[in-house]
């Protein structure tokens, strides 16, 4: 029962960050600020969801798998954000041409 309540609360908190990430992606003015919106969803949003789901896991293997997924997404998000920022910085924020 407590586990379920914790899961619900953590998931809801995670969803808030996903919503915020999407809102930021849509509303922020340029690439550099939109980066932040993305990384919040990656780091905290998925982190909270994973934490919430861990209470429902059937064993340590499942918990480790969930943790691994979070770590992988963290690494991917960080790398992607860094590289997109770098490319935009060196090559300009050009419109993609045909």
């Amino acid at each position, binding site marked *: 029962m407590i586990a379920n309540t914790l899961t619900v609360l953590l998931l809801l908190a995670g969803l808030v960050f996903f919503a915020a990430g999407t809102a930021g992606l849509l509303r922020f003015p340029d690439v550099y600020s939109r980066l932040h919106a993305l990384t919040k969803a990656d780091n905290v949003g998925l982190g909270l969801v994973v934490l919430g789901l861990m209470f429902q896991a059937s064993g340590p293997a499942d918990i480790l798998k969930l943790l691994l997924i979070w770590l*992988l997404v963290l690494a*991917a998000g960080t790398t992607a954000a*860094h590289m997109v920022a770098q490319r935009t910085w060196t090559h300009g924020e050009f419109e993609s041409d*045909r």
Partner: protein
Amino acid sequence: MNGLLVLFDLVLLAGIVGVAWRCLASTDLFRAVVLFITFGLLLALAWVRLEAPDIALAEAAIGAGITGALLLVTLERLRSIMAERRSGRPHTPPPDPTGPHALLRALHDPPPERRTFIPALSFALVVGGLLVTALWHQPHSTGLEPVVDAHMDISGVDHPITAVLLNFRAYDTFLELAIVLIALLGAWSLGRHDLIPARPAPGPILPGTLRLLVPVAIVTGVYVLWAGSHAPGGAFQAGAILGAAGILLVLARPRQLPMAPGVPLRLGLTAGVALFLLVGLYGLVAGHGFLGYADAWAYPLILLIEVAATLSIALALVALFVAGRPAGDDA
């Protein structure tokens, strides 16, 4: 629960159709590529909802790992051709009139015409409408599920899909492996590719991520291959994961990649079909029929074939990504 599921499916369906339409109608190729990546993601969710986790797994590996990278790199090559055409001077290096370059030219000529869109849409609607009508009348058929279930105990594995793919209908699977190989032979016949020299990584983040991801990808690939005997997974999915890891290495090139040597590469690429065929021939000689196994030997033989097939598929995917045949192959 059920109402919510239907709502989820409807939203997903609307998303898939909408994304596909915008992707086709997009005049901006980069936008079309990003939409296609999104399309792959939604499609994986659709496979989940169609209760086909095996295909969702394959779609995840192919869609996330390979298609996106392939399209983005192709787009970049197209751009350099277009830039060359606009400026009237040859891009460096001098474009090879044969080979992959010619393929890209052919893909770009003639430019897409917008007025073909309406006929195409009406054609799609007519065919789609007829299909829906035909599907509407279909009974709820269980297909071959009961027959497969009845034979599971002598199939050598515990996952029905693996049993069908590698035992009951192994011939089809063998030919699918062959098709991957033929596609690669076709790509190689177009021209040669010389590996690009390494270039310095921009900062420590990319090499660091690679150092983390590539080993994890190898472990995951082996895990998915092993899982195939009792759960969704198997050679195609594992091969796609390992192939994506290889593509990551080719893309990032932390250091000079060695030139692929001709003979071992060919042997690696054909290992899957060759081993499969050898096992099949043994079955023919031993009286189990072509591509048949003795019941007791089914599991080890299936595992052997899957390992070789994983290796071949991964190699073939990386080679397809690199596109031209490596210089070592002509030796």
